[in-house]
């Protein structure tokens, strides 16, 4: 007599799969619909940025940083140029500092809008997706009118910014900030407040604070696990110590809190931008920097709070115009490590939702 037996289903999700946020791949073992093992595989978008950096001059590498977390490119620029400036001991004009903050926080809002959109989309909330992209469009328009490009903005330079925003930038920014509360209310209505959303996300994918710390998780994922840690407060870079804002922390450790935390962060970012708009001085946006940038011999590790997690650059300079070693510490690359641990035992649909809460951008993961 034949013995009936069940078999685990090994499913290769990605690199071409609708909800793998690009070319992430994981080999998942299922017992029915229940996840028993996950092996993440990365590298399908690996471009060898760290190697490329060694044959580029310092300013030449700025456009490459746009391609890291391409949903928040000004923030990557910021991290990189500040690292080089720290290495050189360069002071940049006040106005440039303020503009950098404005652009970085706008990028954070844009990135979080895409997060909410893709989060909604990964649990099939199509309409919430459209709303978020509709509103993100306005930020991209602001980027476009300043830098000429929308996604890979490439706006920062070593010593300042590529240029002054045009006059129509300021009314656009103001009207966007004025409309923001209404937008957030709308997202809440269509997405966060929905019973199905809450049933799908609440209590799912628990990442305890201890585990998060042990896994070197950073960014909103860490803060949703109850850790009050934000580089903007812990080690303020640029002029972030001048602004009055809170670090949103949530204690649910689940997918829902990770999702909701992004909404809180948008509110805080808007606060920062308003203060920056109020205080911004007149002046030039570019410091005097020599044509050939040769930082002194030394090494520096500088980190910023990227929307996805902590983005750090570690540069070892040998005094030449090209870095001897440039290391990119990208947030989501490390955050992804939680997936095989946290998503075990949940359903296939939860796996997709938990992965979505990581807000992985493969440009950053694969470097």
């Amino acid at each position: 007599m034949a013995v009936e037996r069940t078999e685990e289903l090994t499913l290769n999700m990605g690199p071409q799969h609708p909800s793998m946020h690009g070319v992430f791949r994981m080999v998942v073992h299922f017992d029915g619909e229940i996840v028993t093992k996950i092996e993440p595989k990365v590298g399908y978008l690996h471009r060898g940025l760290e190697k490329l950096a060694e044959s580029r001059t310092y300013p030449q590498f700025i456009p490459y940083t746009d391609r890291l977390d391409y949903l928040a490119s000004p923030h990557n620029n910021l991290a990189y140029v500040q690292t080089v400036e720290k290495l050189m001991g360069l002071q940049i004009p006040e106005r440039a500092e303020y503009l950098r903050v404005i652009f970085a926080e706008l990028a954070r809002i844009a990135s979080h809008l895409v997060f909410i959109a893709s989060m909604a989309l990964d649990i099939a909330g199509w309409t919430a997706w459209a709303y978020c992209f509709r509103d993100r469009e306005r930020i991209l328009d602001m980027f476009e009118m300043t830098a000429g490009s929308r996604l890979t903005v490439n706006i920062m330079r070593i010593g300042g910014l590529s240029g002054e925003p045009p006059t129509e930038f300021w009314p656009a920014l103001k009207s966007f900030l004025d409309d923001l509360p209404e937008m957030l209310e709308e997202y809440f209505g269509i997405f966060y407040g929905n019973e199905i959303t809450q049933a799908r996300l609440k209590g799912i994918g628990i990442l305890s604070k201890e585990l998060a710390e042990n896994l070197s998780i950073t960014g909103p994922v860490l803060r949703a696990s109850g850790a009050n840690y934000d580089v903007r407060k812990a080690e303020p870079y640029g002029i972030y110590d001048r602004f009055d804002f809170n670090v949103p922390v949530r204690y649910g450790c689940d997918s829902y809190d990770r999702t909701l935390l992004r909404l809180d962060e948008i509110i805080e970012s808007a606060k920062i931008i308003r203060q920056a708009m109020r205080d911004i001085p007149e002046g030039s946006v570019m410091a005097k920097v020599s044509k050939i940038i040769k930082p002194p011999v030394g090494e520096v590790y500088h980190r910023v709070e990227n929307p996805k997690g902590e983005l750090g650059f570690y540069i070892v300079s040998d005094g030449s115009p090209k870095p001897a070693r440039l290391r990119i510490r990208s947030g989501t690359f490390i955050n992804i490590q939680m997936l095989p641990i946290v998503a075990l035992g949940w359903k296939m649909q939860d796996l997709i939702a938990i992965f979505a809460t990581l807000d992985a951008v493969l440009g950053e993961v694969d470097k």
Partner: protein
Amino acid sequence: MGNKEMLRKRVDELATKVNGEVEESLGVLMLKVKGAYIIETLNGAKNFPEMPCDFLHDLTAVDLGNHFEVVYQLSSLRGPQILRVKGIVDRENPVIDSVTRIWQGANFLEREAYDMFGIEFKGHPNLRRIYLWDEFEGYPLRKDYATESVEQRAVVMPLKVGD
């Protein structure tokens, strides 16, 4: 005693214990030790009284020509302390202990360092290439890695089913 001095004191104590040297670069303390002492060093740094450097930010390697340095960026979620630990690894026989037992988060980072520099992390649960494919030859971020032009490069990626 300010935070900085206290950290300096702790690092000095640790340095004498593990036979390392302390430097300062742009305001950040660096502790350079032999690769063999790395676990002891990091365990010590993690358990500094009052100011533990218990959060691993980054782990990477640097090729310095005659030897490698494995660089650990440490800090804490509960204080301003920042410490950079460097483990010196021999170039001919690049082996160092894995810190995955201290920080699970080092898993991918060590795999990446292995992928790019060929440094073997002893005790790593799954030390395989992470970005490049398993059959890739050479370690790209080593300074002696020769980058071919596009024309010379004949990349053939074997298709493996079930990998």
